[in-house]
């Protein structure tokens, strides 16, 4: 039929539970492979600065002398390049996205 093509779908969904979730009240289910926030493990890091050199957005800063590792969360695009090249596996991407960054401050570790 040419008219009311949509009515079957509309009526069916009127009686089905919606697939959406009440987001801020129900947290989003993280998918296993999702690229979320960058996580830094201080213990194994040798401050070799490879991650800072290779970061495509320049979000990372490493000071070898003072043994400081810093990230600008607003610049980080969660691409995972640093995780791939870190020789000591001190970096990892968690599946959760964390709370959004609102300032340009660097986070020091």
């Amino acid at each position, binding site marked *: 039929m040419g008219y*009311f093509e*949509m*009515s079957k779908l*509309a*009526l069916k*969904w*009127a009686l089905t539970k*919606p697939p*959406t979730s*009440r987001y801020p009240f129900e947290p989003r289910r993280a998918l296993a492979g999702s690229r979320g926030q960058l996580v830094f493990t201080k213990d194994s890091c040798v401050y070799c600065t490879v991650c800072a050199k290779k970061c495509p957005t320049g979000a990372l800063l490493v000071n070898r002398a003072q043994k400081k590792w810093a990230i600008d969360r607003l610049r980080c695009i969660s691409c995972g390049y640093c995780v791939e090249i870190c020789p000591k596996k001190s970096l990892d991407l968690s599946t959760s996205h964390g709370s959004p960054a609102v300032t340009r401050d660097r986070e020091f570790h």
Partner: protein
Amino acid sequence: MSSWIRLLIYLIAAPVVGGLLAGWDRRISARMQSRRGPPIFQPFYDVRKLWQKQSIVVRRSQNFYILFFLLLVIFTGALFFAGSDLLLVIFALTLAAIFFVLGAYKASSPYSFIGAERELILMMAYEPMILLTAIGMYMVTKSFYVHDIASHATLLVLALPGVFLGFLYTLEIKFRKSPFDLSSSHHAHQELVRGITTEFSGRALALVEIAHWYENVFLLGWVYLFFASSPLLGVAVSLLVFVLVILTDNVFARLKWQTALRSAWVVAAVLGFGNILVLSLLR
């Protein structure tokens, strides 16, 4: 019940019922679209918020027209529920719509200007059928008074099935729902932004919302009139019609004004006029 009490109930209850209907509308629409939708009372929250907003107008007089639109819509419903002359009701309804259009013209924005033009075309589309409805009711009950029509002994819809269907068609236009939301769509996602109401904000927009609540209750009251001899059936059918309007809203694309006008006139001519012709021939 005296007509004064009915009038009073209408004035107080209509915005509440209208607002709740709007809330259900959004809820049911959302479910049909596989969403959850807002709380039932969202329309009231919206109006409260609009009322608190800063008023920004292009021309101050545009809000004056909206005030008159609201008053005339209330007046239309008041005449109707007080049991007055149906022709007078139609006249007041048209006048209200004209004030709405004038308000949009006054804002001199190209969006609301074309929205107003489209609204005039829509009025041309539904006006014949509304008049035919009144005439059909007169032919059955021999009176134009809502009071007499409501107290008629038989179900009007049995004598006027075509007119009833035609009236449902115009109802789609009056509710400004898809496929006839071309002068002002609910979601402001059209080439005219929000068409006729684009330039209204704050309290003026709140008044427009309240006017629509009154208008919708009045229109459903008219649906009830077709089933007035059996009140329960009347209320049930009115609510069913409302759900049908929501369903139609969700299963149609917006038509262009040419199609809308043509189809409305064809419906008026075939269903409305045909029904009345049959009635007069049977006599």
